[in-house]
């Protein structure tokens, strides 16, 4: 039962303290890596699980003898759902702890907050979440989806299903606004129509009026970029208002298996989501991944796309370290270009031009048990394009080097 978690924490703390007294089992000096996620505040509902995925990968590598014969030691910091805190902690990890790499961040705002820190101190961040694009820093490796690996294919797919009238609903921050900019351009280019657009403050809980607006606009599909808690309120109230997935499906890009647990699968049943990874995938790597994750964190826990991206990000970095035979940031940053790994979602590799990850794109439908039926898949990895031609006149020639098209 979950009630024992507090006890587990106390025991874990005890073990950590006793662990410090044990003699160092690895001969060489350990490799320090930073893990920076919100462990408190509103974003912790999503980020704690990603942190768990990252830590699991680190432990797996350590269990196999470490990296370059050295043990990896994670230093976990709490970004507290507050962007300036993210910047502070990133500085701390780099300057004070002198870590070799940092894994972390979730919201675009937190990434934008730490970006100048990583660029000025010329360091390296692995960012595990899908995002709105229009960025290609040489100091960040993006292991989540670029717009053309999630948003754009899902819009095209919906249009092909003859869902022409879109209602765009999002939380009031940069990802939904930029994502909707891309979607609007795409609707114009590919023959869809926009019937409404609405942004609600983060943490908004009352959706009855928004639902009325949606009813009045009569869309074929609701494209949902809400974040966090608001999704729960929105789906519960949508169902109560008598709108089902049959008359008006919701396509979401921020709801994965982990979020579904808070919403209730029976409430979201039949609605759609676009991701690169679903827990229900049947690759052998995924079977092992899911099994290990459950063994480690409890059998009622689920895996999802960002957790998986947080997980394989560590492996991609480890591959680059092996290739460079060093943990030096500059060398690893060179070596990471083009490395690949057989992740749970299939083969992923780092695009050498823009530091994003080439990965498979899929669309799933929520099942009653909180898993997804995969309706559509590209079948093979899609190359990332962080600057979609529809909304941007720029292109990337090398990480950090962006020119006019």
């Amino acid at each position, binding site marked *: 039962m979950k009630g024992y978690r507090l006890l587990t*924490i106390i025991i874990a703390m005890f073990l950590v303290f006793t662990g410090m007294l044990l003699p160092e089992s690895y001969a060489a000096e350990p490799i320090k890596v930073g893990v920076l996620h919100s462990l408190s505040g509103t974003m912790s509902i999503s980020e704690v699980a990603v942190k768990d995925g990252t830590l699991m990968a680190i432990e797996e590598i350590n269990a196999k003898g470490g990296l370059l014969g050295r043990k990896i030691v994670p230093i976990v910091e709490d970004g507290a759902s*507050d*962007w300036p805190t993210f910047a*502070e902690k990133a500085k701390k990890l780099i*300057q*004070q702890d002198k870590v070799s790499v940092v894994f972390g961040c979730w919201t675009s*705002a937190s990434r934008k*907050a730490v970006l100048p820190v990583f660029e000025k101190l010329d360091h390296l961040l692995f960012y595990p979440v899908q995002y709105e694009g229009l960025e290609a820093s040489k100091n960040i490796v993006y292991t989540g989806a670029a717009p053309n690996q999630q948003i754009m294919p899902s819009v095209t797919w919906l249009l092909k299903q003859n869902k022409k009238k879109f209602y765009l609903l999002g939380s*009031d921050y940069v990802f939904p606004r930029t994502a909707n900019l891309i979607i609007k351009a795409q609707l114009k280019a590919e023959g869809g129509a926009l019937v409404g657009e609405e*942004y609600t403050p983060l943490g908004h809980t009352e959706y009855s009026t928004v639902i009325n607006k949606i009813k009045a606009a009569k869309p074929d599909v609701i494209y949902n970029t809400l974040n966090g808690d608001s999704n729960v309120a929105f789906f519960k109230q949508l169902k109560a208002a008598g709108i089902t997935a049959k008359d008006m499906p919701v396509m979401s890009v921020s709801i994965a298996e982990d979020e579904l647990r808070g919403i209730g699968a029976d409430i979201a049943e039949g609605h759609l989501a676009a991701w690169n990874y679903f827990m229900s995938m049947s690759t052998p790597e995924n079977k092992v991944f899911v099994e290990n994750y459950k063994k480690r964190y409890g059998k009622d826990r689920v895996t999802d796309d960002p957790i998986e991206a947080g997980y394989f990000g560590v492996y991609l970095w480890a591959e680059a370290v092996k290739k460079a035979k060093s943990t030096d940031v500059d060398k690893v940053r060179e070596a990471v270009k083009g490395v690949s790994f057989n992740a749970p979602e299939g083969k992923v590799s780092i695009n050498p031009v823009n530091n994003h990850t080439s990965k498979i794109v899929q669309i799933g439908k929520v099942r009653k048990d909180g898993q997804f039926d995969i309706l559509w898949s590209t079948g093979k990895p899609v190359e990332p394009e962080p600057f979609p031609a529809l909304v941007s006149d720029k292109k990337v020639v090398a990480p950090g080097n962006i020119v006019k098209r």
Partner: protein
Amino acid sequence: MDKKAYQFLKKNWPYIFAAIILILLPNLLSDFRLNLFGKFLTFAIVAIAIDLLWGYTGILSLGHGVFFSLGAYSMAMYLKLKSEELPDFMMWSGLTDLPWFWRPFKHFWVALPMAIIIPALLAIIIGFPTFRARIKGVYFSILTQALALVFSIFFIGQQPYTGGTNGMTNFQEIFGYSLSEASTMRGLYIITVIVLVAVFILSRWLISRKTGRVLVAIRDGENRLRFLGYDPSIFKIGIFALSAGLSGLAGALYVPQVGIISPSMMGILPSVEMAIWVAVGGRGTLNGAVIGAITVNGAKSYLSETFPDIWLYFLGALFIGVVLFFPAGVYGIFERFKGKKAEEKGVLSNRGETDYAAEK
């Protein structure tokens, strides 16, 4: 030695000692810690500003995050225009021209005064009707809290003009000095120390004068003061505006050191936290305010680094504990050790406070 100088030294040695330590810190701390400490010192300026308003005048504002952020945003606009012709978030939001109200902020000598004037002006606009209507006590606190909420939602919603939730970040240089250089950071730290000392001296000067006594009188017995022929609302508006302006100044110093300002700084949480710095330090004493800001933020950084998973327990317990067991704050403990009576120094006693509450 000159007797006068000796007297001065004897009376003020802790301050001189503290000032020397502050000046020497750049040689003692790592770049990261120094930068962090510089941030704490900007918070100390806010704490002094809140203490003037709360500790001395008895008005608790839970909206100082707004004033702080308005100052910070003014400075951020300047820094942003220094780094980019058209800020990146304007481009994402589809703006092609710089909005008119952004233009003056190209100039440092507009941006810096604006960082003080805009918050002060807002305080006057809010304060004038509020204090004239004799709104006080918790009502004023809640009103300012609503203000914090309104401003943060508003700033988040206006992404093309304010940067939305992200706020503003990615600044390159100030006065031609790169913000990634450790030496620039040291310079900013020294400037912060100088401003803090200046604000401290200004505040001490103010409260030692007759104005200061009127302020304390407002706290302890506003009606009696009114019967004596004073108009408390003028003083309240004035001190509110001063407090807001000083917070704005602190915000302007905060931005180049931390490198980001976002609406999360103007919301309710940071605003309440600012009041907590003062409460923990000991309100009604300027020393307490400074100590409180540094203690709470230091504790927050230390605890969250050491216990990233459970640090909120300690922080929450600290707030409860201080309020329950040390009503005069950390500085009050010092004073008690020194054997002085808290009242003599102007620290609020419990008795004074019940009087205040009963009067309502």
